């Protein structure tokens, strides 16, 4: 068990280093964008005079490394600073959106993970059957369409008939039940998009194991096929499954801007796109860091869990 804690500690440190490198990269990339915040704020109506005045007010005239240093030292103390465009604390700006994004991601995960694991196990169990073929075909079809297309189809079928709302309006007064109801279509869209990956990985990992001698042994002992799969195959297939689930969870947190736009869902993705077009660099960096942290953290969890389920990984030489 101590080995596990040691590994977690090492991974955390490496994760922090990764985040630091990412922050430098993000800062460099935002510096490369044409135009600046003052330009974007004033838009078509900018004149040299008003631009200069606004740039001065916003502190855009400082050299880039200095601005980066200020931001980084703030971020380490948990203070992401103030949005240059709105003068509001970034923590406030990002906080509510992060909550929305996590809610949607967890909602979609709660639908898609059990669904794809169950489908994957069943497909492995009855491999090459009509069920296997049909579920594969369906999952592959839904992943092959672009997200917005899946979303519009769902709107056409489920929203225009009045079953579910086509847009999500979350206010502080919204109850949990209402949230689940309103966010159903975006969650279902995401479920359709991520299910195929997890399901096929589950199926492949289990089928791979089913050819092993110990499974043969279990069968020879007269176990039912279901018991063979659940008791003997699944525990050994968990490592790759956990990894693919973690990857998809990270995707659900970071990659859903298209779905957010279609369903007018106030999540982090939209905020980031907004911040990029407005050159609100501090907000872009904060969100990029959150996204990077989500990847690092989920990968860490996946690593730990797969090690726990498969202790041999600890002693790899």
């Amino acid at each position, binding site marked *: 068990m101590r080995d596990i804690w040691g590994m977690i500690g090492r991974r955390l440190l490496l994760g922090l280093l990764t985040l630091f490198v990412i922050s430098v990269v993000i800062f460099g990339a935002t510096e490369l964008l044409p135009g600046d915040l003052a330009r974007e704020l004033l838009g*078509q109506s900018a004149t040299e005079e008003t631009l200069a005045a*606004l740039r001065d007010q916003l502190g855009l005239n400082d050299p880039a490394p200095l601005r980066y240093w200020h931001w980084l030292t703030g971020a380490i103390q948990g203070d992401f600073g103030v949005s240059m465009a709105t003068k509001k604390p970034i923590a406030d700006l990002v906080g509510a959106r992060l909550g929305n994004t996590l809610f949607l991601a967890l909602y979609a995960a709660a639908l898609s993970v059990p669904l794809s694991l169950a489908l994957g196990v069943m497909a492995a169990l009855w491999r090459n059957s009509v069920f296997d073929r049909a579920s594969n075909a369906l999952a592959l079809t839904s992943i092959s369409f672009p997200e917005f297309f899946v979303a519009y189809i769902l709107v056409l079928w489920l929203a225009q008939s009045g079953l579910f709302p086509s847009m999500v309006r979350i206010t502080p007064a919204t109850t949990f039940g209402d949230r689940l109801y309103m966010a159903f279509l975006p969650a279902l869209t995401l479920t359709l998009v991520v299910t195929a990956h997890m399901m096929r990985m589950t199926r492949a990992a289990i089928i791979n194991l089913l050819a092993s001698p110990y499974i043969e042994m279990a069968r020879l002992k007269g176990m039912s096929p279901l018991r063979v799969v659940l008791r003997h195959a699944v525990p050994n297939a968990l490592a790759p499954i956990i990894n693919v689930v973690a990857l998809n969870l990270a995707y659900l947190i970071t990659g859903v801007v298209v779905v957010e736009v279609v369903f007018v869902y106030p999540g982090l993705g939209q905020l980031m796109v907004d911040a990029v077009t407005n050159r609100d660099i501090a907000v872009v960096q904060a969100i990029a860091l959150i996204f990077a942290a989500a990847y690092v953290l989920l990968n860490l969890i996946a690593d730990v869990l797969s090690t726990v389920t498969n202790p041999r990984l600890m002693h790899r030489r």
Partner: protein
Amino acid sequence: MSDYLTRGGLSRRSLIKGATALGAAGLILPAGVRRASAEPKKGGVFRVGIGHGSSTDGYDPGLWDQLYVQTFAAARHNYLIEIGADGNLVPEIAESWDSSDGMTWVFKIREGVAFHSGKGLTPDDVVASLNHHRGEASTSAVKPYFDAVTDIKADGQNVVVTLNAPNADFPYLMSDYHLPVMASADGKIDVTSSDGLGGYIVESFEPGVQATLNRNPNYWKSDRAHFDQIVLLSILDAAARLNALMTGEVDTIDQVDPASIGLLESRGVAKILSISGNAHYVFPMDARAAPFSDNNVRLALKYAFDRQEMVDKILAGHGSVSNDNPIGPANRYFFAEMEPKTYDPDKAKFHLKEAGMETLEVTLSAADAAFSGAVDAAVLMSEKAAAAGITITVDRVPNDGYWDNIWMKKPFCASYWGGRPVEDQMFTTAYSAGGAWNESFWDNARFNELLVAARSELDDAKRREMYHEMQHIVSFEGSTIIPMYNNYVMAVSNAVATPEKISNNWNLDGFRCVERWWFA
């Protein structure tokens, strides 16, 4: 166009009558759809889905730039002067205004009006609100309006504004959406406060997402602000906006995609409001750079494409042809009788020959950031121009950074204007020599001279003549191709009632739908 011709004749006799007729002509609705305006009813939650809005939206009036903040401002603020649905000036916070010489303007400030916070309005608040847009440190987009202002001071219940030259249209400028009357302390307005004089009080505002406002129980206008609550939602995706209206999530949307108008109408759940105004799409050419420095080249390009085709294909008919004229049919001095330009490759060739050319090759930079359909419009132009020996290479550029890297940087590009209620405002902003947004870098001596003269001319007939001449100069010597006026196309659910006349000076009933409309 013939509509405007006859009605333009009317407006000659009586300005107000004419403007009224124009407003009516602009309201193109299928027969039977237009609701007879019954007495407005109070109540209901009015939800508007707007195709703009960003997380950077705020309360600083100098930075407002798009429909979301404009409508949000109209809901919670009052202005000195309002532009009525028929285009004339309506007293709002200024009860009356007067000037003997066009240089010293006296605005009498309404008494007994209070801000949402309970603070009573004083003329000092008005002075501070205007001063926010003046001076070195101001970041306001309308700072140039105040270049001519030498002094603003309170005098009893009046606010006196002194200009350095006469300007007969100055009260019109005071209706600009950047100039709400805000509460002041120590001569400064608080640009982080939502406090205002308007019909609705802000309950919550999440920039780029939604704003909720409740009716101001102490609103001084008894015949306005009929809804109990309004919700302004930012819905950037055109399809999502349409869906929201069709599924009853919102009551009104703006910027209906021309391609979906037919679909929406066939559904019968909503009606389309298509309002012709002064908004127009433009293709400015850099008049300083060859080959556009030669007016013959510019004329050749103006005759080398089919304007009507552009209206039909790019706007799906929801607009009208413009004769390279930035002054629109909703303006008072619109020159409707100007000889129209039709698609005429021979004439284009003739002008090319005049310029000493056989063929012409130019590059047109366009992105849909300029206006929706800009790239398609550029391609249409390029196709038609080929017959006149003009090769237009369409350079499709990214939306992101368009106003930074392309507009006023490339010699030939696409752009748009929301239209201005005042001729002088439009001309000064985009066509006067040295104007900050003179996107074609055009400089015409006669035009510049007329511009100054017309501004201070107090005789209406003479001004009309001057503005007509200026429109003719811009059209035939200007360096901007203006193919069409685009209608404001909105859709409202059947439950929404609107006044007989909908303002055509800006989108969403001059941003005032929140105040003027009601639930039937």
